[in-house]
């Protein structure tokens, strides 16, 4: 394996308030109490399991979504973050996700859906989200859905580990 090949580029997208920045900071062991809505984007480079992860977290406000496409290039993994307690916007959430998946420049990317905010009592469970977000319709990407809570940190590691191992087995071949 060449050194350079162990870099993985991960793009985090989702509606505003889904918890993208909180997930990123929590995963990186930073304080999550002072996070404000993302105006542009955050980039973090993390060493994890011997890989170098370049994580791109882009703001999800409606007016920022048209800029998402600027970040598609060379994406190995896409993390789609869902606020699973925000039932009223799940339709929006589904529409945005499926538009994204038609993007040619994302066609090679592995998709991880984080069903975030599981700590809230009103949160939808995985089965409901699978159904509402029409995940079973996705044939174009390797995908996986997992619940998590950015506040407690639960399942963040499991999710990222799945993503990395899927990407690793897919792209780091010995050609």
């Amino acid at each position, binding site marked *: 394996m060449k050194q350079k090949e162990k870099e993985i580029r991960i793009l985090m997208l989702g509606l*505003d*308030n889904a918890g993208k920045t909180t997930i990123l900071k929590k995963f990186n*062991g930073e304080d999550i*109490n*002072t*996070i*404000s*809505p993302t*105006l542009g984007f955050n980039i973090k480079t993390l060493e994890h*399991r*011997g890989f170098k992860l370049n994580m791109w977290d882009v703001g999800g*406000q*409606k*007016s920022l979504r048209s800029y998402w496409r600027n970040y598609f290039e060379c994406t190995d993994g896409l993390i789609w973050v869902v*606020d699973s*307690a*925000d*039932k*009223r916007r799940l339709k929006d959430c589904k529409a945005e996700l499926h538009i994204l998946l038609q993007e040619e420049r994302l066609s090679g990317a592995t998709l991880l859906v984080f069903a975030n*905010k599981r*700590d*809230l*009592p*009103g949160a*939808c469970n995985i089965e*409901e989200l699978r159904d509402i977000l029409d995940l079973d319709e996705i044939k174009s990407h390797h995908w996986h859905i997992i619940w998590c809570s950015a*506040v*407690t*940190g*639960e399942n963040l*590691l499991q999710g990222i580990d799945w993503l990395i*191992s899927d990407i*690793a*087995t897919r792209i*780091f*071949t*010995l050609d």
Partner: protein
Amino acid sequence: MQEKCDRKIEMLTKRDLERKLDLQKEQEIRNLTNADNEKIDYFESVFNEKRQFIADAIDEAHNIDIDKLGVHFNNISRDILILQKYLAASNIFLRGYDIKIYQQVLQNLTNQARDLEDKLLPKKKFGFKNKKSQKIDIGNGINGNRKKTIDEVDSCAPTKLDAFEDLNAVSDRSDTNLVLSNSQIFKKDILLSKLNNCKIKLFGSPSTLHMNYLKDCYIFCGPVSTSIFVESCENCTFVIACQQLRLHSSKNINIYLHVTSRAIMEDSSNIFIAPYNLEYENIQEDFKKSGLDGCSNNWTAIDDFNWLKLDKKSPNWNVLDEAKRIEKWSSFF
């Protein structure tokens, strides 16, 4: 042939990954110093003591009067939250593996408490938000003098299993006064929409608050643990506390604000900001439950999407003159 080859490579890469993980684990264990070990022991004893306390409280729920159960379960959920914070604060010296185990313990406690609460306490529901009762309201309004209505909450209506019946919304109302207590909104995602000339008091701690299409309204809300969304509102006064405020397409709004990170605004104008000054019984308690820091208020930290000059403040918002501020809201209650 190609397939076989692919599979082999896959296996090799997987094995490589596993080997690295093992190495990393060993390294972590070796790196532990005595000081770390002491800290871990101490953490473990505190954690276990607290866990036992919560587990006892969950058992105890069977022996508690139904009208006191709500409070009891709120206390349990607060204690779990505190323990979660303790764990989070100890992340630095705990090993990844231990954190996973502790988190599993917390998850189990949360599930047990949630299941028992579902069993012992029938789900509450707001009895005033669906379109049907709305129509009845209007009907009454034509005959009666309904300048002001105080709605009551119907707490024992049957719950529908339909997950998407919107139990947590107040919408399509005029000239209405409404008070919701913490037991109705705690940790919920609340929507206020299409309200005209209403006064709504949310005396508790929702997880999120959405306010859309409000006109001439006064909204009072206790500490919201995550974000407050405001969209297409006009001529309103909000007295609100949250971690993040997200304000869109709104104008002529006075906001008495407590925000622990920052506020953003977009396509909005004539926004006046003052510090949060809401008082009601138990508000301190609600701050604690929400996890929101009552001492850190960045009410003038506002980013305007339409104004990206860093050296000059956006003209779309201003600090509300002290002379114009309302000091006590009690006359509104």
